[in-house]
């Protein structure tokens, strides 16, 4: 019954040196209004908000999600491996937990419209689903490049009735989509809520998104006690913006004997190419430095002038140059250990988990399993790994990327060749 580790964050949304509210003045009243709504509805359950949220999570989202003992992985790694199955949430990833919470909150706040950014399309589809379910008009911003390479998710958003606005500037990926969503918000702030997709952005987003995602560790903590009559030695989760990690860790933060590992995308290498404005990875926790991006002070991939670098990962959902400020602080304080897993290892892990367990993980998730493969029993006697999402969305990418490599764990794909 402990595990409710951290107190509510300070009112100013600071996590050590990180966090804050770095937004244009036009948005300040909105973030203040949101901070107030967060306090009242989310923290104080005013008008039964939390009850209604949990009911939607249960009947629409399919919660609780299982905590499954992974028999063959346990054998392989000679340690008890448990999987927290967020891939079974409606829509196929943990992203819905947050999207449902925010769209519902927008309704409680009397907003008439929600907007969101999306990269790979997971947060966009989650928001579109939540918006359809709650009958809220919805527009999604998505870089043109991403629109073109994530057709199925674009289609899912359109099917759920959302408008999809391709963003043509820059490289046409997540960063540009966030910028454009902020611009929409600054224009339509009075009737619009911005459903941000991770524990990033200005306060109260990092705290609020964490609270919506904390259901992961709330469930996992009591499930592991029920299943194994003990707490885990380690919890492992992949980190892009950090909503999956913060959700998976939150209720374990106070359990000092539980090690927490945030696995970032190591991409094709941890170097930086400042001249080209590129980092071929997304390891902001492990290699980034402090700066201000998208509303918060946090760890970033940037050049020495403070220009944000184009990040890279084979998994679009981890491909972001920043990270949530609370996670940055937990790493800074030593409570969370960051790690990186590269594209190759993640692809191997994708194939390995599919084959061993009959669970096709998202490429994001595969990074956590690449770490498990590397560390194995070093992590302790009982390890919980969060399966943040399912891999159906990644099939085409995996086929392409697998063909370019010589992967041990990959099946022969020759059946496709006729």
């Amino acid at each position, binding site marked *: 019954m402990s595990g409710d580790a951290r107190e509510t964050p300070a009112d100013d949304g600071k996590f050590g040196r990180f966090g804050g509210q770095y*937004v244009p003045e036009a948005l*300040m009243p909105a973030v203040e209004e949101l901070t107030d709504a967060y306090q009242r509805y989310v923290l104080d359950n005013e008008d039964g908000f939390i009850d209604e949220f949990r009911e939607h999570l249960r009947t629409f989202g399919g919660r609780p999600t299982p905590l499954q003992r992974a028999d063959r992985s346990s054998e392989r790694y000679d340690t008890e491996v448990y999987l927290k199955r967020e891939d079974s949430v409606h829509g196929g990833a943990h992203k819905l937990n947050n999207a449902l919470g925010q769209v519902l909150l927008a309704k409680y706040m009397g907003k008439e419209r929600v907007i969101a950014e999306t990269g790979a399309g997971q947060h966009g589809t989650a928001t579109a689903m939540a918006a359809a379910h709650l009958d809220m008009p919805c527009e999604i911003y998505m870089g043109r490049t991403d629109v073109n390479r994530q057709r199925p998710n674009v289609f899912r958003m359109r099917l759920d009735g959302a408008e999809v606005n391709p963003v043509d500037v820059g490289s046409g990926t997540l960063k540009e989509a966030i910028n454009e969503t902020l*611009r929409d918000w600054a224009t339509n702030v*009075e009737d619009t809520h911005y459903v941000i997709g991770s524990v990033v952005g200005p306060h109260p987003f990092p705290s609020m998104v964490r609270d919506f995602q904390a259901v992961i560790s709330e469930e996992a903590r009591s499930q592991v006690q029920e299943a194994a009559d003990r707490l885990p030695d380690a919890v492992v989760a992949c980190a892009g913006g950090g909503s999956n990690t913060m959700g998976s860790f939150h209720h374990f933060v106070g359990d000092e004997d539980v090690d927490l590992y945030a696995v970032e995308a190591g991409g094709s290498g941890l170097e930086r190419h400042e001249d080209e*404005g590129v980092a071929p990875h997304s390891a902001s926790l492990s290699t980034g430095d402090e700066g*201000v991006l998208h509303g918060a002070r946090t760890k970033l991939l940037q050049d020495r*002038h403070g*220009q944000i670098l184009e990040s890279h990962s084979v998994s679009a959902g981890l491909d972001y140059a920043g990270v949530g400020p609370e996670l940055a602080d937990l790493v800074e304080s030593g409570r969370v250990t960051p790690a990186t897993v590269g594209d190759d290892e993640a692809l191997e892990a994708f194939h390995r988990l599919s084959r061993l367990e009959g669970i096709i993980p998202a490429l994001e998730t595969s990074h956590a399993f690449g770490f498990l493969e590397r560390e194995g029993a070093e992590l302790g006697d009982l390890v919980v790994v969060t399966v943040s999402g399912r891999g159906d969305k990644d099939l085409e990418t995996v086929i392409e990327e697998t063909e370019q490599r010589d992967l041990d764990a990959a099946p022969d794909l020759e059946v496709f060749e006729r």
Partner: protein
Amino acid sequence: MTEASAEPAPRVADAFADGPALIPYLTAGDPDLEATEEFVRALARGGADAIELGMPFSEPIAEGPTIQNAIFRALDAGTTPERFLDAVGDLDVDVPLLVMTYYNPIYQYGSEDGPEPYVEAAAEAGLSGVIVPDLPAEESDPLQDACEAHGLDLVFVVAPTTTGDRLDRLMARTSGFAYVQARLGTTGARTDLSEATFESLSRLDGYDVPRAVGFGVSEREHAAAIVEGGADGVVVGSALVEMVAEGVEADENPATVAERLQAAVADLKAGAEEGATRATPESQGN
């Protein structure tokens, strides 16, 4: 009034000393810093009372497409904060220059984190003020302290959504002038004026700080109407940046573009002055 190079930079408030201020904006480094120097001189010749220079940042969340593209051109041309400040140092115009940029490049400048090194360098280069659209008052103490230490003004934006206590606090903090955001949204030339502009202006009536209106101003008649509506100055950005973009597109000589900029500023300035004249008899008539 020439030979300004070694003299201390003028104060931002000077811009409002003789009637309504016309404050043009250009993105520094678009299409390169040499051109920017030429353009800035042209703006001064055209009658600008102060000049805002955008120092490019890769994530320009407050800008509309026109200025976004200018910023990307400037970045492509290799415009770093160091080079920007060098170029500013080379300028010899006698109107106050303000830098408009985002917080991260300011924060990263120099060998230690925090805004102080940048502000010190900016003061040395001759800048008179700083505007940071993603830095609200709540997060601005370190920057404000640095600006005060080095004698720079820190201009805050007042949005249409800024009301009540917030407005009081902002107006107390802003120095040089209050940048009155004409409408919600991002920068970008518009062909109409929004009602919100006049509402914002009237909300600011009681404060003893110059008010310059920006975001969407593009035509002489806008300038006139805004000044007539009570503003002390007008900021014009996208309309001028658009001229630069056209010049780049058409591969024109910077000097040609500079002439057009000068003429445009002169025209807008004339508009502002007309507005002042229109306002004066009326207010005297009251």
